[in-house]
């Protein structure tokens, strides 16, 4: 029996709605809901070494689950436990600063993702090589195309080696050649990392790499099973 490295027990998460002075009284009288429930009593265990997928419609709560696990939102009810350090890959290139050079941004983004100075110095050559930016790396990134920025972001993000990797829809950037390369890079990362939780809409990829897949619908984890079972359940409930 393998150890569980991510344990969610009865996790619920609510988002408050902002009250305005002008509607404070009418809200009271009409008893309007003052919060929005994003996750309802999620129970989930991810085992060591497992590649776990999450599928569901837009807004169903898949990304929110990853955010709870990574610590962005602490659960309102229930608890979430993890073993080992976690890295969330989402919104590649968060925090880029347009008027600094590629290298400066690589270091900035690396530190945002939790690297210290030593790690960044060690990884910088590898990052620069993978990004294929050549001399452009010394130019401010406001001169970059969207694809170039994405390449730099992915190069930095994929240089991490966490115990648990959470991936939120980061595939499909850049030109076809780079997309292939980045897919391979993510797959390598998945293969090297102990445990992976991946959110994606590309079911083909899910079938290829996931050991188990969970279906999220309206904030609830509807089922967990093999990728094939999960995908057919997804189509049943979203019909």
């Amino acid at each position, binding site marked *: 029996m393998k150890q*569980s490295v991510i344990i969610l027990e009865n996790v619920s998460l609510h988002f408050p709605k902002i009250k305005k002075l002008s509607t404070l009284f009418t809200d009271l009288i009409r008893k309007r809901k003052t919060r929005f429930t994003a996750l309802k009593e999620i129970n989930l265990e991810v085992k060591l070494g497992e590649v776990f997928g999450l599928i569901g419609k837009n807004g169903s709560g898949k990304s929110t689950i990853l*955010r709870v696990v990574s610590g962005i939102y602490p659960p309102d009810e229930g608890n*979430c*436990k*993890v073993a080992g350090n976690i890295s969330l890959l989402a919104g590649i290139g968060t925090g880029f600063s347009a008027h600094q050079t590629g290298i400066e941004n690589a270091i*900035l983004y690396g*530190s945002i993702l939790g690297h210290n100075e030593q790690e960044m110095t060690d990884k910088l050559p590898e990052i620069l090589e993978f990004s294929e930016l050549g001399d452009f790396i010394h130019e401010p990134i406001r001169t970059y195309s969207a694809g170039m920025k994405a390449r730099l972001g992915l190069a930095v993000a994929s240089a991490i080696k966490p115990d648990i990797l959470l991936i939120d829809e980061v595939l499909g950037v850049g030109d076809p050649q780079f997309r292939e390369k980045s897919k391979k890079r993510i797959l390598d990362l998945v293969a*090297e990392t102990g445990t992976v939780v991946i959110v994606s809409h590309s079911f083909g990829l899910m079938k290829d790499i996931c050991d188990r897949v969970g279906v999220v619908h309206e904030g609830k984890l509807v089922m967990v099973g093999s990728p094939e079972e999960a995908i057919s359940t997804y189509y049943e409930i979203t019909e």
Partner: protein
Amino acid sequence: MVGSTSNAIVVEVGLKPSILKAPIYVIQKIISHKFLIRNLVVREVRGKYRNALLGYTWTVIEPALLAVVYYFLFYMLAGNPDELYAMWVLIGIIIWGCFGKSLQATVSSLTRNKNTIHLVYFPRIVFPMTSVMANIVITMMSCFVIIPIMIVFDLPLTIHVLLIPASVLLAGFLATGVGILLAPLNCVYRDVEHLVRFIVRAGFFVSPVMWTYEMALDRGIFGNVAMYNPMLTPITLARHGLEGHATTLPPELILWTIGFGSLMWLIGSIVFEKYERWAVKYL
């Protein structure tokens, strides 16, 4: 690789130490994230003066121009001020500016960084600390304006000139405590931001920017009340440092300011640690 986690201890996500330990916990987080804070400060400072022909010289030009305007205003109102008055106003503007800008930036630090907060987790205290430190760096650059002033007014360069950077740090420290106290509330109601903007404008006149500690000494009850303004200490210290003599401020006033700042830091860090996790849901 695989297996490296097999011995890892299962920990609950988002658990925080007890409330009373929050001030120490916050300091530990700042130290352990110093590389990140440094990079974010560089981003902020560079971003502020990007694409400007004069670049960082604006840190000096801005307070100098303001001082000229206020000197002129004071001249019209009171006539014939002391020849050092323009210099007093200038250093007052610099130190007050450090406090005001730091306060406004800390209060809005979480709301301005909401995209980052949604996508990556690191201790959120990093955001207000970055805002304060960026403003301290900018203010330190502004302080280079004192070099020509010292030459023009033939002021002696003594060890007391160190009072100037010390007051910049003190002003930043005062802003931090109040700022982190209000930053989580600003996520829920942006009214806080608007209120703070007003307070900073009004505080400019209540603090000794256009007037000095010495002027307040013989103004009876209003003068005595003005002594309780915590910003009186850093501004006056900087002026005395520039004049090149030891400060004549009574030690109890300096202690009051440091005590006020520490109390604000204590309360601020407890409130910030307790409420930031709940406040970011409003972003």
